[in-house]
């Protein structure tokens, strides 16, 4: 499965983790990041397993970083200075350092330089830290909140504002409407929130030197939930950059700029969300010709017995939000369902989405499948008080250019041990269920991947 070197590296990193354990171990940790500091409470008030929210955390988020059932943004935990009510800075700031100490890939490399086609490559590297995130969030006044996230991707260099928005809450009457303006992740409130996952997205490896509006293959696909992914082969943003079929997009993008409103006008069982965005994949310096709109409804059951369940449906209507190889505009839409059930230590969630190009452009007629689907099923369970085991299954039935598209299925498993509430070590393995199928494409090339790393939040 592994070469000797990669085995050694993996073994060493696990041993390293084991050696760290007694140094950092027991003692119940008090809460850490900004909101826990502000309310003098524990991370687990709001999370099932950070960053996944539990029912309470979900309502806290919906309420614009105010405790559910209150409008405490102007007072709790704050200091009054003249006409300002300010939190201490450490009540606003949080940090997350996450990285795979070991990345170990096994994949069939397409035409590597100086080697024959189809060479199998094992690649093991240290890459810690992968990502360092600074986020600031909270309330500036009653019913006015903000959130800014600065991410630094160590591999790619540079820091950018990943998300940044202000919220205006409880407009009209309590829970009627909460407004977000800025750059935010649209899929924040549905049953399966894009950016809150245990098995996070892992980027793909591109073959390089891709030219505009030309097929650009990947050496290996990325590992993102299929329900959230682009799903189409041969789709480009408006500038001609190839879109990765395995990267999050549309309603499930990590961040887009726009305005969105959510609320619970009929009580706790029903949540609505509607929004308008400049367009999808704006991060590639691209806005649509027209705006994209989306809507989401969510039904909740959350009463007692340590149980909660929810079901969400969403529609995303793109407006000239992508192009095909022939540089013709398409309207790329998504229709999806997600569901989640949590009972004591077990948290199970799933999302299914259908992506549709509403009209196949003339230039690619007969060569292009305008429908694609993605299914993701995830589960987390605490096997001990400090050990979380996570599972994810993905199936992507790809669409797009018939000569390129390749469907894929993955299973991912992760064990995460919380040395303290804010410090975890993890080991993760992802397996390609369709690697034995013929063809030499990115979706087949990846055999399996192993990661071990550290996740620190403070």
């Amino acid at each position, binding site marked *: 499965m592994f070469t000797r070197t990669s085995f050694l590296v993996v073994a060493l990193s696990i041993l390293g983790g084991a050696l760290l354990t007694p140094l950092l171990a027991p003692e119940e940790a008090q809460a850490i990041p900004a909101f826990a500091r502000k309310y003098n*409470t*524990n991370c*687990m008030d709001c999370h099932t397993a950070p960053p996944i929210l*539990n029912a*309470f955390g979900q309502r806290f988020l919906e309420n614009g970083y105010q405790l559910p059932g209150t409008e405490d943004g102007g007072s*709790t935990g704050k200091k009054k200075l003249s006409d300002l009510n300010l939190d201490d800075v450490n009540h606003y700031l949080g940090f997350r350092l996450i990285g795979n100490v070991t990345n170990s890939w096994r994949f069939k490399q397409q035409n590597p330089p100086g080697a024959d086609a189809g060479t199998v490559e094992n690649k093991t590297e240290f890459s810690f830290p992968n990502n360092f995130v600074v986020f600031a969030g909270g309330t500036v006044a009653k019913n006015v909140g903000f959130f800014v996230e600065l991410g630094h991707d160590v591999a790619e260099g540079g820091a950018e504002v990943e998300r940044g928005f202000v919220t205006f809450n409880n407009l009209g009457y309590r829970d009627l409407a909460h407004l977000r303006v800025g750059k935010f992740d649209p899929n924040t409130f549905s049953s399966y929130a894009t950016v809150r996952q245990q098995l996070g997205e892992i980027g793909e490896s591109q073959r390089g030197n891709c030219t505009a509006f030309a097929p650009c293959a990947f050496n290996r696909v990325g590992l993102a939930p299929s329900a959230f992914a682009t799903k189409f082969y041969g789709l480009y943003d408006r500038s001609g950059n190839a879109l990765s079929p395995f990267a999050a997009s549309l309603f499930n993008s990590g961040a887009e700029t726009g305005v969105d409103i959510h609320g619970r006008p009929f009580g706790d069982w029903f949540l609505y969300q509607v929004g308008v965005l400049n367009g999808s994949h704006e991060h590639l310096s691209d806005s649509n010709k027209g705006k994209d709109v989306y809507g989401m409804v969510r039904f909740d059951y959350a009463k007692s017995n340590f149980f909660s369940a929810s079901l969400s449906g969403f529609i995303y209507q793109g407006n000239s939000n992508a192009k095909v190889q022939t540089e013709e505009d398409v309207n790329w839409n998504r229709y999806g369902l997600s569901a989640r059930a949590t009972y004591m230590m077990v948290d199970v969630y799933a999302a299914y989405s259908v992506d549709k190009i509403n009209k196949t452009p003339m230039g690619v007629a007969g060569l292009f499948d305008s429908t694609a689907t993605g299914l993701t099923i995830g589960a987390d369970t605490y096997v001990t008080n400090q050990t979380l085991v996570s599972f994810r299954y993905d199936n992507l039935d790809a669409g797009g250019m018939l000569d390129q598209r390749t469907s894929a299925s993955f299973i991912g498993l992760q064990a995460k041990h919380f040395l303290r509430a804010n410090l975890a070590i993890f080991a993760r393995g992802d397996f390609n269920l369709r690697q034995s199928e013929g063809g030499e494409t990115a979706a087949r090339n990846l055999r399996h991947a192993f990661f071990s790393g550290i996740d620190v939040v403070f």
Partner: protein
Amino acid sequence: MRIHALVAIGASLLMLSGASFVHAVKPEDNQATREKGKQIYEHACLLCHGVDGRGDGPAGWFLSRYEGPRPRDFRGGSYKFRSTPSGELPIDQDLFRTVTQGISGHMPPYSGLSEEERWQVIAYIKSFNQGFKGPVSIALLLPNPPGPPSAAGIDNGRTVYIKYGCQNCHGDNGYGDGKEALDGNLKDTYGHTISPGDLTERASFKGGSSAQAIYRGIMTGLDGTPMPSYADTIGGNDKDVWDLVYYILSLSQERQ
């Protein structure tokens, strides 16, 4: 005549507003109040304490997962933070204090609710437990702290700490690492493992970290946990308790 009438009207208005002000702060515990409290409860409390007040809300499991403490069961469960003797229900002011201050490390403070809303939700919470319909528990006499702590007093506090067996759970240095804690022997009344407070860290004082709050915790105990009430066994030996309180406070630094 006219002036007299005006004065009379003014006076009665004042009295009326005074009366309504008193009512606004602590409403009468009646059906209408409980109904309002229910609405607040369902947004603010239900997610941890559950729809029936059993402490089994949809988010309630994660706080301590397989261990304790779980969110309070309002139906029959013991209340930790009281000013009443062990085994008794808390008085309203005890509940108000917990709702307002929260429980450090476990429950956020709900000072964002107005005073009236807090009283309303307390009226509703009390309706889960029939015991609150009986006679109101009598709070222990909780005196104000005596003058500033003396060096000799703190020395005596250390002696009392050992005599009272505090180190069995809270550890010789107050880190919450006593033998019973390390051996995993400390369980709440539900059988869940719980950890004793770290006396060197004020955020670890769940009932509050003022001298009076610590005195109250020692005297009343924390029902539902192994922490016993010392009020009866040491009755009359108030000086020792205050010395102990100041010794405990000397273990942690004041921050903020």
